[in-house]
């Protein structure tokens, strides 16, 4: 476990690279599993892992809220923007 830090996972989550975070987490989980089996895991490791999971859940929650708002504004822009441009074209054509 010594050679694997949680920091890269934290950085990947923080930069919203969830795919990469998932791959790093799988590696870490494999090593932690092995450490528990061979008795080298410590309470501190489990505690640090739990902290990472809780923190990541918060980051993902914030990301979802932001992404949801963005998707919503894209939807609204599409509804109003689309109708407006069609109308303008009709006016310009009619004027000739």
């Amino acid at each position: 476990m010594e050679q694997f830090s949680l920091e890269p996972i934290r950085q990947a989550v923080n930069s919203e690279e969830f795919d990469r975070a998932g791959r790093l987490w799988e590696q870490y989980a494999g090593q932690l599993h092995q450490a528990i089996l061979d008795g080298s895991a410590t309470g501190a490791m489990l505690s640090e892992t739990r902290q990472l999971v809780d923190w990541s859940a918060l980051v993902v929650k914030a990301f979802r809220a932001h992404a949801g708002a963005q998707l919503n504004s894209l939807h609204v822009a599409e509804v109003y923007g689309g109708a407006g441009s069609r109308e303008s074209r009709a006016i310009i054509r009619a004027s000739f």
Partner: protein
Amino acid sequence: MYNAAVDEVTGQRGQSGGALGGQAVVGQLSRILSSISTYSASGQINVLEDLGLKLETNGRLTYAPFTLIGAELTNPASVTSFLGSAAGGGFLKVATDALTSVEDSVTGLLKTSETDMTSQIAKLGATIADKQTKVDALQIRLQNQMAVSDALIAAMEQQASYFSSMFAAQQTADQMYK
């Protein structure tokens, strides 16, 4: 006819103007109309007002038929000279040339403006399509990221709980065998 054209051009101007508001063609049409109504020549009859066509401050022309009749009676040669002909010269030549510069089916102002606007609309359409493609891509990326982030948290929660239980069980077992 002239006044209708003036009204139409005027209607395009200002904040509550028409679809051509802000377009150069409005000013160009206005100048061409002015060149007709402000035509002047040398001679006893030298402006349209001498023939009863008075240019008002709003750009429209008003017609006083008795003025024209009077001019015709007192000075018919000057009236004819002022009017001229469509091909030869005088007012009619100026008016004909002005209208041709507007209406010519190839080089006329209306035709060239239509061509320009069609081109602008096509470019605008291409820009809108390009932006739409980017918006669609962003939408898909955000949706994918949301799905991936959900899966990540679910996996982390599940595995962290499993490891905690496993670790606690092992601790308990270790204590039992001490």
